[in-house]
């Protein structure tokens, strides 16, 4: 519970910070709008040649796109800014203040920053998702909705764990900013269901960078494709990755304090 309390207070501060730069809201809105338009156009282009893509119809792919935009907004608003700040703090040696606080250090470094305006994508993604579901016409049962929420949480946890491990590398290798660009490139691949990619890429997007679980699996929940086995695997992987990320973070922190020296 302490974590949510802390998140709330940092969110409050972050929101106050961001509200001073209202221009950024309009820039973000423009940027998100353009990205959405490009996404819709490319989808329309693909479906002018075919009626189904690896078993997904055009409207179903709108669901995938909606989830992709939402999750991207969440990563951009919460995960990425915190990890960037962490990289910077490790490099500049300014992590000290976070570490002298009587809170869990990992939680502290994970909630300090928020890019409020990136939440525009969460809203935009939700609207797109809602529209797609209406177009599909199938009623979403409580079980499917619950599956979607649970799968999204697992997916977000996996992406977070991936990020914190990636960032912890900064404890040893001082410059890791470039990995951010790499991640954005890979995340872009999640706009399509991972099933359309060849096996090796699918494996990479599932287990190395868990985008399949963050985007495709929640979308599967809403389109009646999600099996209990997949959800179970997602749960196992989420817990496993979270545990692993905590371990990597702790070893990294010991490195920062010079315990291994």
């Amino acid at each position, binding site marked *: 519970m302490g974590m949510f309390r802390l998140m709330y*207070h940092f969110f409050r501060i972050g929101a106050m910070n961001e509200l001073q730069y209202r221009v950024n809201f309009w820039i973000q809105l423009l940027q998100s709008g353009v990205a959405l338009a490009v996404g819709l156009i490319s989808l329309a282009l693909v479906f002018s040649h075919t009626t189904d893509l690896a078993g997904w119809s055009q409207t179903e792919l709108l669901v995938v796109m909606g989830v992709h935009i939402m999750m991207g907004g969440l990563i951009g608003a919460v995960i990425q800014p915190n990890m960037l700040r962490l990289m910077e703090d490790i490099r500049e040696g300014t992590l000290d*203040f976070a570490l*002298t606080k009587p809170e869990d250090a990992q939680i502290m470094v994970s909630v300090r920053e928020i890019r409020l305006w990136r939440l525009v994508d969460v809203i935009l993604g939700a609207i797109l998702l809602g529209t797609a579901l209406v177009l599909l016409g199938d009623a979403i049962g409580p079980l499917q909705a619950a599956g979607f929420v649970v799968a999204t949480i697992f997916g977000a946890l996996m992406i977070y764990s991936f990020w914190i491990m990636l960032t912890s590398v900064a404890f040893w290798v001082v410059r890791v900013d470039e990995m951010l660009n790499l991640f954005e490139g890979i995340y872009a691949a999640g706009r399509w269901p991972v099933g359309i990619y060849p096996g090796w890429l699918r494996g990479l997007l599932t287990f190395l960078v868990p985008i399949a679980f963050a985007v495709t699996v929640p979308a599967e929940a809403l389109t009646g494709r999600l099996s209990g086995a997949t959800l179970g695997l997602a749960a196992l992987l989420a817990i496993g990755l979270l545990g692993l990320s905590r371990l990597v973070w702790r070893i990294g922190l010991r490195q920062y304090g010079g315990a291994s020296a």
Partner: protein
Amino acid sequence: MHTSAIHVNGLTKVYHVPERQAGLLAAMRSLVQRKVREVHAVENVSFSLAPGEIVGFLGPNGAGKTTTLKMLSGLLFPSGGEVSVLGHVPSRREAAYLKQITLVMGNRNQLQWDLPALDSFELQRAIYRIPTDQFQTTRDEFIEMMEVGDLVRKPVRNLSLGERMKMEIIGALLHRPQVLFLDEPTLGLDVTMQRRIRSFVADYNRRHGATVMLTSHYMADVEALCRRVIVIHHGKVLYDGALSGLVDRFAAYRQLGITLAEPADLGEYGEVVSAEGSKVVLRVPRAEASRITARLLANYALTDLTIEEPPIDDVIAQVFATEADQPAMSG
């Protein structure tokens, strides 16, 4: 041992620093063959602080002051030795410990840059879980003590360096810590600001009985706050004792302020620091000060004579000039 707030015994910190020659070729060679040099930042340092004591921690840049403070505040793992602060081992970073300490670094800030300091204070309240009424009392008390008034409502970016530092210190002490690690808290501030911060620290120490370890390059800070100093150089303790004892032990000379009835050249009596008309400042070896004074009084008509200890800065410089590998002395 439990009567001391801070107890340090044989504390050592060794850094492993990659080493290479300058130049591209050397940089490429270091890719395969990494040479690592051991740097003893802190070596076998021992001291104890009683609860409520304010101790000045002195030393030139790179002496190991900040490294020691970081080990005391749990940021760095010691390579050897024992540290106990308020009965806790700092490197375990227990919440119960961290709630009782604070670390202020004059060259760093933790306030939200774009927001008024009040908002950052609120965040501190949340992080330290300070009860609301205690928080408000402490905050208002500190605001008054620091004389910052309405400045707390201005975005931090619009404050002067000194005003910002005042806010930093208020924010860092809102949870009423029992142990304060102050690393150059007055760095770069003007004299008035320094004085205000000094008296704030003294007040806080008096009101809350907190133990304070202070590093500063401004001897005025140390003179005003610390009766005891620990001098560290090349990672080793050179002196631990009363500030006055430091002057006694290390001041090699005294200064004579002389006003002559008629101008004269006093070069033969000692080093002339300044000579303006009939006013002369003379630097003489400490042991000979009284003999020279007697000779001056016998040979010249003096209208005024003062004998002064040299400025503490000079004394400190003197200490650092002595070899670091001498055994630690106490006074």
